[in-house]
């Protein structure tokens, strides 16, 4: 019966791709980080910019998990817990600042603020 199940399970499925290596996970992490960076640089809305920074955080988290699995210890995972906690706290702080900034200029456009020029 288990042979049948496994055969059925694999019958109509295409042959599996190559097993996922560290490189795949790091690629995902890198692409996510890149997307976050580009988004941060390109977007004008402060909240969206903040969202992109969170994306970059998570990308780093994925890289940490991947390395943790690679080295077969829990170091990376533990670090990710801390990173997530800090990211959450920092998110609260940043959003508070964004609220204050919004109160100043009634806008969330990052280009509006350039008083520190020169």
């Amino acid at each position, binding site marked *: 019966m288990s042979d049948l199940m496994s055969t059925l399970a694999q019958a109509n499925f295409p042959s599996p791709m190559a097993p996922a290596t560290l490189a795949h996970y790091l690629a995902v992490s890198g692409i996510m980080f890149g997307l976050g960076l580009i988004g941060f*640089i390109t977007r*004008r809305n402060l909240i969206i910019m903040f969202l992109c920074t969170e994306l970059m955080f998570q990308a780093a988290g994925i890289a940490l998990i991947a390395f943790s699995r690679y080295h077969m210890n829990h170091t990376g995972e533990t670090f990710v817990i801390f990173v997530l906690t800090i990211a959450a706290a920092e998110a609260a702080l940043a959003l508070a600042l964004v609220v204050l900034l919004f109160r100043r200029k009634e806008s969330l456009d*990052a*280009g509006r*603020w*350039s008083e*520190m*020029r020169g």
Partner: protein
Amino acid sequence: MQTELLQLVSTLGSALLAAPEAGHAAHGTAQGSAHAAAAVPGMGAMGQWALLVPFMPLLGCVLVGLCAIGKVRSKLPAWITIGCLAVSFAAAVAMLMQTMHGNAGQGQTSIVKAWDWINLSFSSKGDMTGTAAALTQSLTANFSFYIDTLTCLWMLFVTGLAAVIALYASEYMSHDVGPGYIRFFAAFNLFVFSMACLVMGDNLVLLFLGWEGVGLCSYLLIGYFYKKAPAVAAAKKAFIVNRIGDLGLSIGIMLIFVVFGTVEYSKLFAIIQSGVLPTGETLRDHWVVWVAPLLLTVGAFGKSAQIFFYVWLPDAMEGPTPVSALIHAATMVTAGVFLIGRMYPLFTADPHLVALTVVAWSGVITAFWAATIEMAIFDIKRVMGYSTISQLGFMFAGLGLLTPTGAAFHTFTHAFFKATLFLGVGAVMHGFGGQLDLRRLSGVMWMKGFGLVGIAMLVGSINLAGVPFTAGYFSKDLILAQGFATPQGMIAGSQWIAWILLLTAGMTAYYTFRTYMRVYVGPKEFVPGNDAELVELGRHPKGTSLDTWHAQHGHGDHGHGDHGHGDHGHGGHGPADHGHGTDHRHAARYDFDPTTEEFDPHPPGAAMKGAILIAMVLSILAAGLYFYKPIHAAEHGGWVAGLVNTSAVAVSNPVVESARGGLLFGQDPHKLMYYVSAGVGFAGILIAAFLHGPKGLGGLFIGNRTRAATSRADVLVGLFGPLTKAARNKYYVDEIYHWLIVRPLNVLGHVFFLFDKLVVDGLVNLAGFAPRALGHAAKGQQSGVLHDYAVRMAVGVAAIVLIAMLLGSGGLS
């Protein structure tokens, strides 16, 4: 300072108690053995009371300074000064007595130490050849005083004249009683102290201290009328020109220290006498034996107003007359003569006598040059000033011609008769409100109260001219005769020097009596000079002769209240009210401006007359010294020769003794010169009488001057033309110096100023400018836009990653 005060007080105390004993005690102790004449005289003992001579004037200075603090408004500073200087003079006389009779009548040398001053000892690196002792050098220059007969001779007339002139100045400066008076007498005392350090010091460093001190006091006293621009300029000029000479002197002293290893006279003379330097070389062959004297000579030139360096002395006449009498006639200017005399052993150690030749020629050129200028100028005080320069030339010529006796004797007599002359001129200046032009004064001797002044001036003039049997006659003769007596080879061109000096003596007689005949005898006339132009060196108002000027302005309008000049500073000065009853305004005031102030001619008072009388009597008595031969008198020179020959100069005696034997017209020059110089002197006097003498003195030969302004000499002025004009303007020497030296230095100063401002300051400013410029450029980087910063951060991260990758891969492969 406290220990010094205590020492001073103890000195005074011991002086009062110990003087008689000290005299007796030292008399018998001949510490040096009985030397031959060609050796430094034996050392003797002198009590500490000899310190009174230099330190009493210093005490006087301090006390006068206290007067300043106490805001004294009387003549007290003058009495303090006269008192201290009189005590100093008494001590100098006692010092002379003891020194002359010490060492069994041979004259002694003593060293009296006041306190330790410079006592350094250092060892140099061992790469000098020579004995081990030479490697550890020591510089010892203590505040000690070297007392031999030369010192005593000098201090006699320095302190004596200082006391007499202080008496004179007490009245001359009486219109400035208050801070000015105190300032005057403080500087006066400081001057005498510095002169004492110079003359009595036992090492070259103390001499240099005194040298600079007299220069300083000369500056302070010439610039006494500090509100008058010419006086200030003259003071600066004197100090600066002296300083140039001082450079030579200081280099000379340093050279002597380096080569001889010592600056103290006693050790120096011992080395010179032995003829061997500490490094082992013989003195005769070493180059220092002519370089060091030349350098010292440069110093002497500056102080004693020799050729090229004399320009400060005529201008120094801007100072009050007592200053001119003391400093610029009798004492400070003889410092150069003293220096050469004191270092005579070094000067004569040179087998070729290079430095002495230079001294002789400079002396004769100076004497001649100054005499020619004097025959033309009109300001009688400046005539006296140039006369001092000329007589200093005689003294230097005497030193150069190897008669230190003649030079010393001439210094001695000149001090007295020149002081008399200056005091007389000062009396005229004091009485006539600064009028010194001999075209505007006449017959002063016959004016009420000026009789003594006239007699004193006559006495001084006959001394200066060298009339037989006066002191000046004998002293000048010694020098003139020596010019012929010195053998031909010793000093190059000594015969020429002698003939030019003789001619100069004739010119001296002429200009002296020109002044005397014009100012003191003849018709009584006085033209007050509110016109500063005419009082200057003979410049007439442009385009007019003196006669025309008088015709235009008239004699009578120069009266005392009517002139427009008179109203300037007087407020409410009516035409009939002269207001001069008690208010005498004279040239003596330090803010006196002769162009605007009024004056009332009056004769000198008791103090001035007393001082003039004393100076006159002393100049007459000085002649007697020629005949007084107590000790060691050479054939010629009397008492002074005795003193000079028993001093340290005696080390040079072999050289001086060999300077004899030349002949004049086949006769012994010393005997013949009595007649020759008398003839030359009388010729000069007669020419002066003919050209400038007043009418009615009897005989065809005497002049016919009837007015102050004109005389027969005016005809000659036309004949000589440009030469007279040049002489009158002192050959434009000051102007030449201005264009040759002062202006280029000024330009150089500006160049250096620009260099400092642009280059040096520029570099410093650049150091401040660069960071700011950099910052300014970098400022543009701050855009203030968040995205901009984000991009930069991203680029930075990318760059770091790239570098890390490249390095990592490079490291691996």
